[in-house]
């Protein structure tokens, strides 16, 4: 536990994308209880101005709870939230400054698209033609300029979500909250909308928090990802950082595909995995500590490995799973038998080298790509 926490605190500041990073949203010691159940446990987080942050995690990890606490819809049990320097911890939603988009779109079904978008603009003593111009501008922004007179039910899911988005940004809020906005859409529409939302956010420069359980979504859209599990933050960082250097076994397992194998620390920078001795970063772990060795299938080198190289050994190709543009092959053989390592091999490589099940190939686990976690950290 202590190591995990160390890694978290070390990484949790992450790298802000903007050159001049100004904290816009500050969350301190935030906890939320539902009866005896702790949904959020002592969350600390800073979100910078203009940043796109994704809360990523499995269902029930607390990401939506955190979003709703930021919105004031379900106020936290304890802890502090500061937005633009103002303490908003106890404020009701109407006194906070945010726009929100839900998975269900929550468009008012009896109002036209234009009326939906104008909903937050009315009642503010703005002249009517100004509202109309703003609505037209917003609809144009999301590519629905000619759909204003329609009712939400007459639009496709993707279009409805765009309407919801333009309604949320109509009042130019300082913070945009997106609660699984793409989950109800078809796969293709989803991919398309990802880019649109991201582009729109960058154009407007609005600080945005999006909740998602889809790692691909988070990796493609976010400036920084907040990986959550069981009410705590596991890691905060830019997508590449999270993918390359998962701080915990949970993050490693949740994002992308990861091989996990049981090993033992043999000494500083030395780990034994089955019949192989590996050179890698072991941190401050003592010799004899049982650990979990992790490496991504695409990081295992199968190409042009010379024997005698560091972390290289010979393996036999087991079951080959065809996954479209590549194969994911099980690696067996006396040295690593039982470890269940899988390596990705491109179609090209397989064809060129004539690889097939039962073939013996030299493989290498590059030392920078190997991650070591205390054994107990994986799946309880």
């Amino acid at each position, binding site marked *: 536990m202590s190591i995990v926490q160390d890694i978290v605190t070390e990484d949790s500041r992450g790298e802000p994308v903007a050159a001049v990073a100004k904290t816009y949203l500050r969350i301190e010691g935030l906890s939320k209880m539902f009866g005896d159940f702790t949904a959020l446990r002592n969350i600390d987080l800073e979100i910078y101005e203009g940043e796109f942050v994704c809360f990523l995690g499995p269902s029930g990890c607390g990401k939506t709870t955190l979003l709703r606490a930021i919105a004031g819809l379900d106020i936290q049990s304890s802890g502090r939230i500061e937005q633009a320097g103002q303490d908003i911890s106890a404020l009701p939603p109407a006194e906070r400054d945010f726009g929100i988009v839900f998975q269900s779109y929550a468009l008012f079904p*009896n109002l036209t698209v234009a009326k939906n978008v104008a909903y937050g603009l009315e009642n503010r003593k703005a002249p009517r033609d100004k509202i109309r111009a703003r609505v037209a501008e917003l609809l144009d922004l999301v590519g629905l300029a000619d759909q204003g007179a329609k009712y939400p039910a007459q639009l496709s899911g993707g279009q409805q979500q765009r309407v919801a988005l333009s309604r949320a940004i109509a009042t130019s809020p300082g913070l945009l909250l997106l609660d699984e906005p793409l989950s109800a859409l078809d796969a293709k529409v989803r991919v398309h909308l990802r880019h649109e939302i991201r582009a729109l956010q960058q154009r407007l420069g609005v600080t945005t928090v999006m909740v998602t359980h889809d790692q691909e979504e988070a990796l493609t859209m976010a400036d920084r990802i907040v990986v959550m599990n069981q009410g705590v933050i596991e890691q905060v960082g830019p997508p590449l950082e999270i993918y390359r250097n998962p701080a915990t076994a949970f993050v490693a397992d949740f994002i992308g595909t990861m091989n996990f194998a049981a090993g033992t620390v043999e000494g500083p920078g030395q780990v034994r995995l089955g019949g192989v001795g590996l050179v890698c970063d072991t941190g401050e772990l003592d010799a004899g500590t049982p650990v979990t060795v992790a490496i991504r299938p695409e990081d295992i080198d199968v190409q042009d490995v010379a024997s005698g190289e560091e972390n290289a050994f010979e393996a036999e190709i087991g079951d080959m799973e065809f996954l479209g543009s590549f194969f994911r092959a099980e690696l067996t053989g006396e040295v690593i038998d039982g470890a269940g390592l899988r390596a990705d091999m491109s179609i090209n490589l397989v064809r060129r080298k004539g690889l097939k099940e039962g073939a013996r190939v030299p493989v290498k686990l590059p030392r920078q790509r190997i991650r070591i976690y205390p054994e107990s950290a994986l799946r309880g």
Partner: protein
Amino acid sequence: MASVAQIPGAAIRPKLSRDDWAMRGLMVAIGLYLIITLALPLYAMMSKSIEIYAFQPANVEFQVDEGQGWGPTINALTRGEELGVLTRDDLVTTSDGRIQATRFFPDFSFLSETRYRIRNTEPTDGGFMIRGLQVTHDDWVEYSSGDFRRVTLRPGLSTGLGNYLAYFSNPALFSSIFNSLTIALISTVVTVTLAFGFAYALTRSQMRFKGAFKTIAMVPILVPSLLPGIALIYLFGKQSLVLKVLEWMLGEEAVAGLWQGLINGTYGPTEIYGPIGIVIASVFFTFPHALLIIMTALAIADARLYEAAVALRAPRPRIFWTVTLPGARYGLISAAFVVFNLVITDFGAPKVIGGQFNVLAVDIYKQVIGQQNFQMGAVVSVVLLIPALIAFTVDRMVQRKQVALLSARAVPYEPKPNRPFDRLMLAYCSLVGVFILGILAVCQYAAVIKFWPYDLSFSLNNYNFDVMDGGGWAAYGNSIRLGLYTAVFGTGLVFLGAYLTEKGRGFTYGRTGFQFLAMMPMAIPGMVLGLAYIFFFNNPANPLNGIYATMAILVVCTVTHFYTVSHLTAVTALKQMDPEFEAVSQSLKQPFYRTFGRVTVPVCTPAILDISIYLFVNAMTTVSAVVFLYSPDTALASVAVLNMDDAGDVAPAAAMGMMIFYTNATVRILHSLVTRGLLTRTQAWRMR
């Protein structure tokens, strides 16, 4: 994971927005309305039921002066027992009970020169009175013979279970419990069986005219429960229409034997007056209620279960017993308890056709209206509350399970044509349809002929309500006013209340409490509610005493009486709305009333119309609660039916009953037209 749940930092107290305050305030206001119009009257009734008026002769003493000075002190209790004027165990009376002081002196003569004096030994509220003035102090008061004859002993007020003891030691009273239970049980079995068959035909066959049958089956909702009783009197009463028709068809000789059977029945003049009549009338008016519930239960059947059963080659009866019935079991149980509750609390049917067969609801009426014994009325009310509460509780528990079934993702079942089966179902539904329409037809026929069975010529004399007891055409006008007021105010109140509980933020205790209050009216029988209103609102000490005997109290009573079903309809509609609407409008800084007015109400318009029509129809037909509360100025059509029937003007009663039917039917048709119009015009968004 970390093992310790250490939550640092002080707990956050969410700040309430102006909206939150406004919503909570409104909710508390509506909650208070329910407390004042339901909880407090019920409390007043409960207190009344344990009020005992009993003579307290032990505290009364006499002295007599026959010219030789005052004689020895005579205790009224001792003397009374000696003389047999009263017994120690039989002192309970009503608030109006009186004993003449002279009864303690058998040789009393008001012409004699003898002087009497009397005193209370305890300054209680019992004591004695003379010329309407009560004396409660404990000094001797002297009277001449002439005045002494005007002295009476008053009962004192105490509390205890005496009224209940009196109730349960009087077989004439408590036998009603068994009568009520028997009637309710038999009616429940019959109605649920008939309604199940009907619902089965509508959902599991491909018979023709389903729409028409569905409409016909709903007809009884539109008439007061008094009406089937009236029709039964015409059909099977002393001048049985059925026998007249048979005579006409078969000749007098052939049916002469049947006359004897009818007229010398076990329960009074004819068999139909009594349990048989009550059961038939109850089945008539509870049928649509049971049908709606069972149809819902059957309609949610999952086609995949049937396909699986057929694929496993289960024979039809086995499918029925293993798939259909278990799927509908909650619906059946729920329907049974609803029917049971309706019958046991119903007043109309047994009043008209019960004859000498006493049931609880009629007992309340008799105690209060007939004998002015309000305490005993309250006792019977409490007794009636018990089965009603049990039925209500079980129904609520079952309904919850039914909802859980509904949410399961099922493929709707589509029945396949099956000629013989469809025809059988058509025949069955036709029979039920004939029964329902026949009841109405008989009433209409009776209303437009001169004098059954002697003068069968057409006449509208029976519609000349103004020359009869009951309130005349004004009563009909009052009923329509009551219906409109109830629909308008009731719908507004109920929908707003449901909105606030469903969509409010936080305030969990308040909302739970409100939900409980909103469910209560369904458990309270109308007769009980009406009587409770007398106790509560007719009390001069009550600041709301002013609404007693006005239209306002009728509206309040009717809204409260039918609150629960309306509330549930509103809640169901509100639950179907996206829960995030409120979150979005808060983020857009819009006050709740704006979203309520621009989104919630328009989207829920069909449900709002449903609630208003429900309230209107029930205000038109209800008798039970308002029968205690109307005044000469606010007589109602449904009560007029009752009173005209009571006075022997059965044909005009039928005519008025049919007026109620036509009014409700018209409103219903208007309602469906308006709903359809609204859906196509203002609710264009529903269409793709």
